[in-house]
């Protein structure tokens, strides 16, 4: 069932964070979020502390999934770039490597052109990192390498529900 699960180690996270922190500066963005296509938040950077990032991640994934469905109906493989314009803040979403969504929130301190330009470069870097993660996960699963979950017992699981 979990044959394509995502396993992210601290070193992977630091690489991703470095890319998005740089992108905040380069694109003059308010906030940047890296979201798994299934709606899990992977990393965030910028000044938008305190917002509901779990909901943001889930709704982003829903939005990308819905427009992906629309794309197929009209004969496109995907609509990989989305732009939502607001009165003050704008949202730019890009599908990276078919699996990761890069969300950039920006206001009038930046521009769509600048965001597009910077996202292209950062997206390519992120694609590379996630390809490495994917390969590593595949190798570990093929090699039967243990994770903390290979050692959990039924008792551990039951204890989770005993309270």
């Amino acid at each position, binding site marked *: *069932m*979990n*044959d*394509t*699960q*995502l*396993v*992210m*180690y*601290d070193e*992977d*996270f*630091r690489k991703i964070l470095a890319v998005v922190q740089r992108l905040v500066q380069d694109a003059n963005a308010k906030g940047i979020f890296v979201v*798994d*296509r*299934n*709606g*899990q938040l*992977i990393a965030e950077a910028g000044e938008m502390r305190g917002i*509901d990032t*779990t*909901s943001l991640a*889930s*709704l982003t994934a*829903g939005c990308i*999934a*819905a427009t*992906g*469905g629309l794309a197929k109906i009209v004969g496109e493989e995907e609509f990989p770039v989305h732009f939502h314009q607001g009165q003050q803040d704008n949202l730019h979403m890009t599908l990276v490597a078919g699996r990761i969504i890069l969300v950039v929130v920006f206001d009038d301190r930046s521009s769509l052109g600048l965001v597009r330009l910077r996202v292209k470069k950062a997206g390519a870097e992120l694609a590379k990192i996630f390809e490495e993660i994917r390969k590593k996960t595949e190798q570990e*699963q093929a090699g*039967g390498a*243990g*994770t*903390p*979950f*290979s*050692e*959990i017992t*039924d008792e*551990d*699981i*039951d204890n*989770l*529900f005993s*309270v």
Partner: protein
Amino acid sequence: MSFINYSSREINCKIVYYGPGLCGKTTNLQFIYNKTNPDLKGKMISLATETERTLFFDFLPLALGQIRGFKTRFHLYTVPGQVFYDASRKLILKGVDGVVFVADSQIERMEANIESLDNLKLNLAEQGYDLHKTPCVIQYNKRDLPNSAPLEEIQKVLNPSDMPEFEACATTGEGVFETLKAVARLVLRDLKQMNR
């Protein structure tokens, strides 16, 4: 598709509540939301029509506790049950780790239950998943209604393969947490086996 994050020491899993229209999927999530400690839950999102029918999905993030130093987080989703929303159901099933099939116990909804269960099998198969190999539990909801079908009859029709099953009344909460715990257990066991 679970997400294991060593950096924040978290494991995230996705559970989808499936079933025919008006069977009580959203009511299950609402009960869980209302009865969960605020520290353990996030905001519940419902993308619904003006008449409160689920349009795309409901979403509820839930933290269950720690296993071996890892926080376990479950993202609960419902699908829109109405037949014509099939495209949306397929999208929501993507990356699923566990399924709760909510059946409507009323005799007149038996055909809708069968249709929805067949639809679940089909949509899982499209993604390469087999329902019988997927962590799945079945909930017989609305057991309190006078027109509910006898339990043995529903079991025979909807659960010949003997999935874990629960009687429920989602409006009062009976059976709701038992169902959730059972599917969460199956998902974690599946994860354990995957990593062996």
